[in-house]
């Protein structure tokens, strides 16, 4: 009696879980599935398997340009964000900077402020300074967005690296800079890589800020999709979606695997 009731309960929970997952992942699965549809309308029923939409995507110059822009923007954002993030974390964790807590809060704040507000604020500020929109401005915006993530990850790792290890290196004759390069940075590497990856994927995904900041004529992948959707739903978009999913899911997984491998050989 108890047993069947228990089983029923577990069954219900199982069903509920499956429904939640379906709700979350079915739309994505549909996009991926339809991107291989041979039909010229991006909808069911499927008439056959084909990669023709990937081919047209490859030949679509506007999309490819947007794709290149997004990659360059993402990479630059990642490099600048991790560099700034590592330096800021070092200062905040290793040195007693006056107002350390305030600075940390300010650096983390962009996560808490709604993106639209931040986007408008930066735009108005630059307008006030009479600086026009440009790729550099777009890049700056993305750095502001992604910096908190890098700082959070790097700071957590830095706290776990004991000061003793650095002091040992110093006592053995390494200068502070050599100590950083040969001890601190290698130990920090998993966090730096994770931070960089975060920065790249966030930048690659971003649409709100990008819409506000991008100068005319420059499109990133999300803004390009957005403008394409205004006309019609082309099956190309499904193909593009599939590529983006592969990138944004695949890259972090790759990074995770790399970090795990590094951990295995170097300890942590």
């Amino acid at each position, binding site marked *: 009696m108890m047993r069947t009731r228990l089983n029923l309960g577990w069954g219900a929970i199982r069903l509920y879980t499956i429904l939640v997952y379906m709700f979350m992942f079915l739309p994505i699965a549909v996009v991926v599935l339809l991107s291989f549809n041979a039909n010229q309308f991006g909808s069911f029923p499927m008439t056959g398997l084909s990669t023709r939409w990937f081919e047209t995507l490859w030949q679509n110059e506007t999309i490819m340009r947007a794709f290149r822009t997004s990659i360059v923007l993402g990479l630059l954002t990642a490099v600048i964000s991790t560099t700034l993030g590592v330096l800021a974390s070092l200062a905040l964790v290793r040195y007693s900077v006056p107002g350390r807590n305030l600075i940390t809060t300010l650096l983390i704040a962009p996560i808490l402020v709604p993106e639209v507000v931040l986007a408008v604020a930066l735009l108005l500020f630059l307008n006030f300074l009479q600086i026009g929109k440009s790729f550099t401005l777009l890049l700056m915006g993305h750095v502001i967005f992604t910096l908190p993530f890098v700082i959070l990850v790097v700071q957590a790792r830095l706290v776990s690296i*004991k000061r*003793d*290890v650095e*002091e*040992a*290196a*110093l*006592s*053995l*004759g*390494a*200068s*502070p800079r*050599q*100590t950083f390069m*040969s*001890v601190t940075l*290698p*130990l920090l590497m998993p966090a730096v890589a994770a931070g960089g990856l975060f920065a790249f994927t966030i930048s690659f995904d971003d649409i709100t800020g990008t819409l506000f900041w991008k100068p005319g004529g420059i499109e990133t992948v999300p803004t390009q999709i957005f403008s394409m959707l205004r006309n019609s739903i082309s099956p190309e978009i499904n193909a593009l979606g599939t590529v983006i999913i592969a990138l944004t899911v695949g890259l972090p997984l790759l990074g995770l695997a790399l970090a795990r491998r590094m951990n295995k*050989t*170097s*300890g*942590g």
Partner: protein
Amino acid sequence: MSAVSLTNIVKQFGTFTAVHRMSLDIAQGSFVTLLGPSGCGKTTTLRMIAGLLDATEGEIAINGKRMNDVPIHKRNLGLVFQNYALFPHKTVAENIAFGLNYRNVSKEETQRKVADALELVQLPDLGARYPKELSGGQQQRIALARAIVIEPDVLLLDEPLSALDANLREDMRVELKRIQQRIGVTTVFVTHDQTEALAMSDQIIVMSKGRVEQVGSPEEVYNSPASEFVAQFLGASNILSGTSLGIQGDELGLQIIDFPRLVIPRSRAPQITGVGPAKLVIRAEKLHLVPKTAPADDRLAVAATVENVDYQGQSARYFLRVGNHALQAINMIEDHPFETGAQVSLRFRAKDCSALPGGTSHDAQ
């Protein structure tokens, strides 16, 4: 010339004085221990010698050269930490070679020195392993090898045995002393463990609350504590208030209520100058319990009551009462200890006693 010499150094953190004005000379090749409870300033002193902290006042010299403004990486010191502080991303051999990379040592020379160092710490086959694949004791040996392979002017050890298991700690103690004697490096050792300090040191500096309480050989600080703090910190001591009856030749008379009159060697009470309040210090293991009915011998005797017994296997710690005095005694036992409530005779020798001036103890400051 002293290997390390501290002259009037003071360390303040804000308004808190961690180390009060102290001077210290450490002889070339000696093993010197800074001993004291946590917060006594011993680690602060070590870190000032290392260059990890700046002295607020005073001068620090190593081999006669002023070091105050020399950064740590130019001081040529070996530093060993409580938690090993090995580089987790480098192999054992790379860890040991680390310091040599900054010293213009050729590749072949480095390899040879690393092998020698591994040999010295008796772990010749572990060069290719990573630190986390080693036990705590092995890691500490590697840390030691890494510190001595650079042939430092001074070896600084910050509680290096405290993270190890009790048994391992004793082995490492012997090992550490063997290696230190073999290479003859001047060593400053920081510990809160009196056993380690007594077993390993040529000289012990007992510290409390940022002040030096006593400097001396292990025998000196153990047998003739210069203050109540030292007497209490190094093993269990009984401290009884009484009166000095004055000095006669090289002997000192002492009167303690409920005790027979004592005559102790003058050398055991160097701080007492004449008649006045005084304190008798006698170690717990120097008080021997015998049955009340035992015949008198050449020792002094006083009647006592056993109030409590702490059985420790080969020995027992007794809590005793003699008149108004509460005493402790630690005796080896053969079969079973005296029981609680037993009336016993307490025997001890006057030459095992020492005396301090009464009333002005350091702790009271």
